[in-house]
């Protein structure tokens, strides 16, 4: 039954990836904790399971790697050994290799990797901790703070080549502390008691029933819920009009009751469907401890990582697309933000740098923050660099507030370090972060203070299918603009508009912003908005740009369901999609990001 086999292999790939995702953060936690039987056991079980299933399916390379990793974990677990950093490196390399191998299985490309070196390293690692096996198993309570005197004695007794790894010292101390003849290998009573505890705690874990569903089915439901929302909006609108016309009709009250009930139910339905697509952001965050750990090793900076709000739920598409921008920001914070341990001590700061990653839901927004307590962004250096790269003129640089200057880092091709390092700079910079976040209808900001640190804040809408929109009118037509990109709306007098070198500008709270007229941008016939004595202006903030845009009329805010238009690419025409308003009109949703890009390219010429 080839189809059955194919399905089993697909299932194996998904579950194998999930298993690795689950155990990955444990390694890093383990490294800071030292010995933890429960964690070691969980990793052991993951490897064990992988090996078992791979055995049935005949994936020999996966078996080879997983088997060795499993043996090492088992040895650590059963003998109360805290893994050394070097050992951890080997095991983490194995996890990476398993991902590559599983990738081959996923693609069904039958390719093999050269794993001989890794296997040799694993075998060597297996021999190393085995030394401790001869001694009685250390109890869980043993890896206490090592007694300095004992350490010295231990090292004298048994000199080691790599005496710098404290983990090994702990093991040696353990040897000293447990009276060797007294306890036979694996005292059963203690072992059982420990096991029972473990079971108790894991049994308390809530059993969550899950169902795997093809995402296209969910999207179909989402789509239908969207249609229902549109119909509801239309119905509410009609009901209101009918009430005005036939207020005396005995059925009106029933109609209004029903529509208001439908209103509530539809909102609940919409929310419920949205929730199906939502997943905890831990799916993304779980990769970071490992990444921070690796960087900390490479750059020789000791880092305390704190993660909050892992349970915050976000749309599946956010899960899929927020990883890369976040990786970039975190790398940047560690590489450029955090000082070396020595620099920090010289400044009187804590030796270890801190990185705080958090996610919170604030109303209909998801706010993700990456904070470091490093040196902060040098605003003057940013100004100089931007000038040198021809991004701004000297005059602009002088006028620019610090706040605006910091935002220059989001300009394409910007990098504050002269020589970009292997880790964070690769020619691409924060501009890519900004673009990727904008694709999710979100925006990114940075707050920084010298020697205190920096915070990168990404704000995203809860869902991508429904957005808060500003409804505007240009000429005869109504349009919608994503509210997330509009900072404020103003009514300005003609006399407020100035002309600077052929470009109309407005001064908003001390900042000079270019002013564009939407009807001209769209090429729509209209009584020129600016020709009137008073005109409506929106202050838009898109990626790195702030600008004003004049419209004929502001209609108001509305929650709209975005419907994609087949064959219409937003990148080409600046139209995000369409929606149907409460009064039944089809309205185009404009993509301010695309429009802004065009305007600024045109105005620079």
């Amino acid at each position, binding site marked *: *039954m080839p189809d*059955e086999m194919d399905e*089993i292999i697909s*299932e*194996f790939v998904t*579950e*194998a990836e999930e*298993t690795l995702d689950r155990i990955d953060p444990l390694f890093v936690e383990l490294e800071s904790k030292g010995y933890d039987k429960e964690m070691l056991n*969980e990793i052991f*079980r993951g490897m*064990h*399971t992988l*090996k*078992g*299933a791979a*055995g*049935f*399916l*005949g994936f020999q390379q996966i078996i080879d790697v997983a088997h060795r990793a499993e043996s090492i974990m088992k040895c650590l677990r059963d003998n109360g050994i805290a893994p050394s950093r070097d050992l951890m490196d080997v095991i983490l390399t194995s996890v990476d290799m398993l991902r590559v191998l599983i990738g081959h299985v996923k693609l069904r490309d039958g390719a093999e990797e050269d794993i001989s070196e890794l296997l040799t390293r694993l075998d060597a690692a297996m021999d190393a901790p085995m030394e401790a096996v001869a001694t009685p198993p250390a109890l869980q309570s043993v890896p206490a703070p090592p007694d300095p005197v004992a350490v010295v004695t231990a090292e004298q007794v048994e000199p080691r080549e790599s005496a710098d790894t404290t983990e090994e010292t702990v093991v040696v101390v353990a040897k000293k502390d447990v009276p060797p003849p007294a306890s036979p290998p694996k005292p059963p009573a203690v072992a059982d008691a420990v096991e029972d505890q473990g*079971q108790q705690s*894991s*049994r308390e*874990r809530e*059993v969550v029933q899950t169902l795997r569903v093809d995402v296209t089915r969910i999207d179909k439901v989402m789509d239908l819920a969207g249609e229902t929302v549109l119909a509801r909006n239309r119905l509410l609108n009609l009901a209101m009009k009918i009430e005005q016309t036939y207020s005396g009709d005995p059925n009106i009250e029933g109609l209004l009751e029903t529509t208001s009930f439908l209103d509530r139910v539809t909102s609940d339905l919409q929310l419920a469907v949205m929730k199906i697509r939502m997943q905890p952001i831990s799916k993304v965050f779980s990769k970071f401890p490992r990444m921070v750990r690796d960087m900390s090793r490479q750059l020789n900076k000791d880092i305390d990582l704190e993660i909050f709000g892992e349970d915050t739920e976000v749309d599946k598409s956010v899960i899929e697309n927020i990883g890369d921008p976040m990786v970039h920001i975190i790398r940047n914070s560690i590489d450029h933000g955090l000082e070396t341990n020595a620099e920090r001590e010289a400044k009187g700061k804590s030796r270890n740098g801190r990185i705080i990653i958090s996610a919170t839901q604030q109303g209909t927004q998801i706010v993700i923050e990456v904070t470091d307590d490093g040196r902060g962004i040098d605003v003057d250096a940013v100004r100089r660099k931007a000038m040198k790269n021809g991004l701004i003129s000297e005059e602009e640089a002088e006028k620019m507030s610090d706040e605006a200057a910091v935002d220059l880092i989001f300009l394409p091709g910007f990098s504050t370090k002269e020589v970009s390092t292997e880790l964070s700079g690769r020619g691409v910079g924060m501009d890519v972060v900004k673009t990727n976040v904008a694709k999710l209808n979100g925006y990114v900001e940075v707050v920084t203070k010298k020697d205190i640190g920096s915070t990168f804040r990404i704000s995203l809408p809860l869902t991508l299918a429904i957005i808060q929109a500003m409804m505007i009118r240009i000429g005869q037509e109504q349009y919608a603009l994503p509210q997330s990109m509009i900072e404020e709306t103003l009514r300005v007098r003609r006399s407020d508009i100035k002309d600077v070198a052929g470009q109309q500008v407005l001064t908003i709270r001390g900042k000079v912003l270019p002013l564009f007229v939407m009807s001209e941008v769209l090429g729509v016939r209209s009584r020129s908005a600016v020709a009137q004595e008073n005109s409506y202006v929106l202050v838009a903030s898109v990626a790195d740009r702030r600008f004003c845009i004049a419209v004929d009329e502001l209609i108001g805010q509305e929650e709209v369901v975005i419907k994609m238009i087949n064959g219409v690419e937003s990148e080409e025409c600046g139209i995000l999609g369409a929606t149907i308003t409460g009064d039944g009109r089809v309205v185009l949703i404009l993509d301010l990001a695309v429009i802004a890009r065009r305007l600024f390219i045109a105005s620079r010429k």
Partner: protein
Amino acid sequence: MFDFKIKVLVVDDFPTMRRIVKNLLKQLGFENIDEAEDGVAALSKLKGGGFGLVISDWNMPNMEGIDLLRAVRAEAPPLKDVPFLMVTAEAEKEKVIEAIKAGVDNYVVKPFTAEVLKEKLEKIAERKPSLKAGG
């Protein structure tokens, strides 16, 4: 031959493994297969009654295979006597002995083929005729 109508419970925490074992059982001809993700879930299903064979993995969270076996053997008949096949990757002697002491009917080392599974079940059926057709 086996009584293919009996209800079989496949216990493993890894869904792919359950599917593989179920697939092998189907290849042998078994039709009525249920599954559980760990010892705790398995025990509550088994207590519901009607199972004629348990195939359980050893290493699972919450409740390991060996503890499930012990719990089953501590029940009243007929559950107490249900044929129990342990799936293990660790062919270490001490573990197998532990399982035999706890009353396992047989064990099979991963990975195994449908043919090996059949042999093991035949051995069990010699002592526990309930597994055999008409038994």
